């Protein structure tokens, strides 16, 4: 099935576009906006607004009929393994569990970049999504940067961690992989690997890599605290 944008009638392809060009308002600028829209596949573009938004810059609103159509039958997207749960759902499912989820996180090895671990654990969170500290159901400990694997293991064990977050931001010659693998192996060797959920995060990390390194999940760029919280709830709180 081929689909066009729906404006007022099936198949009219009507879209709106707003943008800025580095030109002061003029007849030439209006024509430039029109051609710019045409090059995006808009037929009969109507420049509805042209205003100076800064000196030498114009802001435009343009309507036009998009010529493009998508074949929706050709789309094959794997469904994501878990959607982020709402804050209320996360809290209520942990409440049912009867005790808080203890999470201990750190940037391990030589890594001094806590931006990732801070974004997930600290109250302030990331992109408007508050960190695990902000939930009643989580007890979050952020050990900060340059924590050695054995220190992290010892602290996590003494705090009774349900989950451990390892963050690896800056990496040279794949040291992030070696370091992470060494941590999961340490847990195996000491015999407590099965007692905790191990999570790995960082800009070079994806789920597949994390599994290969002996972790339970991997979180890459753009991960929000709510995604991590949702994963832990699904893992540790049983059926809703």
């Amino acid at each position: 099935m081929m689909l066009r944008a729906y404006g007022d009638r099936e198949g009219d392809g009507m879209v709106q576009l707003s943008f800025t060009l580095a030109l002061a308002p003029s007849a030439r600028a209006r024509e430039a906006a029109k051609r710019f829209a045409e090059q995006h596949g808009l037929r009969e573009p109507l420049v509805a607004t042209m205003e100076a938004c800064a000196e030498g810059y114009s802001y435009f609103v343009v309507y036009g009929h998009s010529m493009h159509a998508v074949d929706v039958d050709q789309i094959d997207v794997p469904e994501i393994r878990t959607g982020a749960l709402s804050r209320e759902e996360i809290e209520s499912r942990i409440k049912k569990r009867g005790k808080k989820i203890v999470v201990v996180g750190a940037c391990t090895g030589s890594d001094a970049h806590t931006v990732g671990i801070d974004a997930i654990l600290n109250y302030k969170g990331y992109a408007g999504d508050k960190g695990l500290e902000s939930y009643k159901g989580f007890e979050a400990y952020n050990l900060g940067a340059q924590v050695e694997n054995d220190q992290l293991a010892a602290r996590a064990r003494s705090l009774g961690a349900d989950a451990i977050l390892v963050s690896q931001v800056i990496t040279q010659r794949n040291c992030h992989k070696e370091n992470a693998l060494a941590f999961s192996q340490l847990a195996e060797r000491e015999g407590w690997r099965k007692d905790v959920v191990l999570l790995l995060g960082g800009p070079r990390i994806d789920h597949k890599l994390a599994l290969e390194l002996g972790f339970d999940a991997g979180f890459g760029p753009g991960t929000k605290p709510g995604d991590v919280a949702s994963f832990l709830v699904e893992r540790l709180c049983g059926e809703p």
Partner: protein
Amino acid sequence: MAHVPMDEKKVASCRALAASVATDVQRYIDAHTSVGVERTMLRALGVEGLGAEGAPLVNLAVDRYQKAGLLDRGISFFVGRQLISGAKNVQDATERLAYAPDIDEPTSGPTPAEARAALAPHVTAALERIDRARDQREALKARVAPGPAPLKYVIVATGNIYDDALQAKAAAFAGADIIAVIRATAQSLLDYVPHGATTEGYGGTFATQENFRIVRTAVDEATEKYGRYIHQTNYSSGLCMAEIAWMAAVERLDMLLNDAMYGILFRDINMCRTFVDQYVSRRIIARSGIVINTGEDNYLTTADAVEKAHTVLASQFINEAFALRAGLREEQLGLGHAYEINPWLEDSFLLEVAQAQLIRQIFPRHPIKWMPPTKHKTGDVFQSHVHDAMFNLVGVTTNQSIELLGMFSEAIHNPLLMDRYLSLKAANYVYTTCKHLGEEIEFKPNGRVAQRAVQVLDEAHELLGEVERDTIWNAIARGAFADVKRTREGGKGFAGVVARGHDYCNPLLEALER
């Protein structure tokens, strides 16, 4: 005229409780210093530049004397001794402190009184630099007046200071009165101030003294061009809040984000460190005439904006008490609050009006800072624009002083050039079309708005009573503000706090306290 009931006795009682909270902390502050405070004094006495491996010279000198266990005497004492023993100037003296083969053991040689005498001309020069910048600002403002309230505040955050300067001018063209250059992510956690002009930054642009100068030049040009005084803002917060306050004072910034508790709650900076540093930063700010913007708006991004509205008011009283103890005038206190109630809640607009009006009345001389919705913004830019228009309506009706404009692309990206333009256009429209609305309306004496105002003040009063009884240290530990809990010795930067010795020497701070 719009007015909500306000129990004067209860307001006075809130102020008394907040004063008691601040007095308790002031005893601690007066007995301590920090590496940040000591570095600030070096900068103010005239030290500049970087030392070995790119670290600021002030860090090298202060860290060395802290490691030697001598910082309880005050770094100024050692600078004074170097001046007496032949250093050419304060810069040379500080280089000696950082690099001389031996630490200066103060068992013999010049006394603190002699060190003070040697430092006296440098202390005078530091004060004169602050005063000169203040006088320049006042002269320019007298010649080119600022726009009417609410002053329209916008943010630029490109990461490149030269782009920031360009965007600042573009914003002024579109009607902005205040330009804030947002800082690079996590600068607040750096225990040093980066140096020079910077063109790379994630989430914002580094606050450096050179970057301050570049933006000052740009907004001064805009001031002249558009015939309206354009203000410059940055952040005196984090582990270097006092150093940044000094840089801002001498580079003639107009406003600083500066809060007695924000770093503790939202950046997990140690509370002892924050209380000591905020005091010294505010002593400089007081002298410089800069207006501070406090961060209570943040409370409502983490805690519920209906249930926890009173925590904002309670914190404003506490921030005020701390600021007055550091010598600020009420006209310098831009206490913050925000339009963060769930917009789909019935009558949420009435609750926002009630709080904004109440705060306006309780703090009549304060340049109140009104912050836009962020928490309930989604990627729907059209709905977001309407949401901001309602926020603007409250701002102009309740006569807020400084309004950070909402952006319809909030929750998507840093504002584009046209986003900022459209936001300013909408604010100009609402301010103009509703200019005197606040003078024309009255709220029903026992109506929803009035009742809400009474409730918020009552709850704030109750909370302040608890905080006063428990002390702020314990109140923060149990999560009284923003639902965040912090311990007295936890958080970042505690190792940088030092108890002052009985012969602690800091003549510049003493001069600022006079």
